[in-house]
């Protein structure tokens, strides 16, 4: 069975490290939002952001595992593979290659869609089913048409960046600007993956790394600013501004 590996030889291994870094950053964001949801359970959107980032984090994990088996063809795979060969189904590493990358594509698109959908009015169950169908279809077809996944991811990322741009126009918050920048850079990396061949593939990976580094910077900034505001008492909205007006129950 044919396995398409576009990563240049000299870059193999580095791409796994980049994905591992991405996994850590995405897991941090997932943790931050789930933690916020646990504090304020009335805001379901915290949970959806957490699930969205969590799904993309698991996608990275699936890709890492698939690549480890693919690049290094380790013993476990050979053992599993021999059992499968006995059944005459597929070749050893192919199992991890196809299942791993399918889950990578499916979970990435599902996670991105979840983040995109956050700022839109509630849609019907049928619409969710329809989107789920297209995401699964895109993940399956990307096996043969590799750029279909990157193209879909590119469009969803563009729409996410557009959503946050709308929010930024209202709140003018520096953190939202960082978020827009990192999602836009991530979109550019997906565009490069579409036209990828050898060095371009490595460049796309590095650009992806930059966007995740920016997201990590944002996570640190959120924590730091939260701490600073706590000490300064900036989070106190009413105190001292209108002492004559008592709160209503």
């Amino acid at each position, binding site marked *: 069975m044919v396995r398409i590996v576009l990563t240049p030889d000299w870059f193999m291994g580095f791409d796994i490290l980049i994905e591992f870094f991405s996994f850590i950053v995405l897991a941090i964001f997932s943790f931050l939002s789930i933690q*916020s949801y646990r504090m304020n359970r009335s805001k379901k959107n915290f949970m959806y952001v957490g699930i969205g980032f969590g799904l993309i984090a698991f996608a990275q994990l699936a890709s890492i595992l698939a690549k480890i088996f693919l690049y290094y063809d380790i013993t476990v795979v050979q053992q599993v593979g021999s059992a499968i060969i006995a059944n005459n189904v597929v070749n050893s590493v192919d199992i991890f290659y196809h299942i791993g990358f399918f889950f990578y594509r499916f979970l990435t698109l599902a996670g991105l869609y979840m983040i995109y959908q956050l700022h839109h009015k509630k849609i019907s169950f049928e619409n969710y089913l329809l989107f789920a169908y297209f995401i699964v279809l895109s993940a399956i077809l990307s096996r043969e048409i590799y750029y279909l996944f990157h193209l879909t991811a590119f469009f969803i990322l563009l729409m996410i960046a557009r959503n946050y741009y709308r929010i930024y126009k*209202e709140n003018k918050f520096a953190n939202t600007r960082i*978020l827009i920048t990192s999602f836009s850079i991530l979109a550019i990396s997906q565009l490069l993956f579409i036209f990828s061949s050898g060095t371009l593939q490595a460049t796309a990976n590095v650009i992806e790394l930059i966007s995740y580094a920016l997201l990590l910077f944002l996570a640190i900034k959120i924590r730091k600013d*939260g701490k600073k505001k706590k000490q300064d008492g900036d*989070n*106190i909205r009413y105190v001292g501004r209108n002492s004559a007006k008592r*709160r209503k129950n």
Partner: protein
Amino acid sequence: MEIISDMLGVILQKGGKIKPTHLMYKANLSHKQMQGYLDELEKKKLVAKNDNEKESKEKISIQITPIGRQFLYKYSEMKEFEKTFGL
């Protein structure tokens, strides 16, 4: 939750310790409201009444606990996160 975080913020602004009357004034609460919230904060161990000064009612002070500080930190972080993502 916002009122609770405001109350804790006021205490922290005052160096972690405040007199109930000052807290009432700073947090824009009525006496009845403040008592209700204070009971809740004490129950959740976010604040503690200063034990040494319990005898004299006028000298009672309310102190933020490490759990209260942690809560306020997490709350501020949540607010930052909420604003960043426009949630």
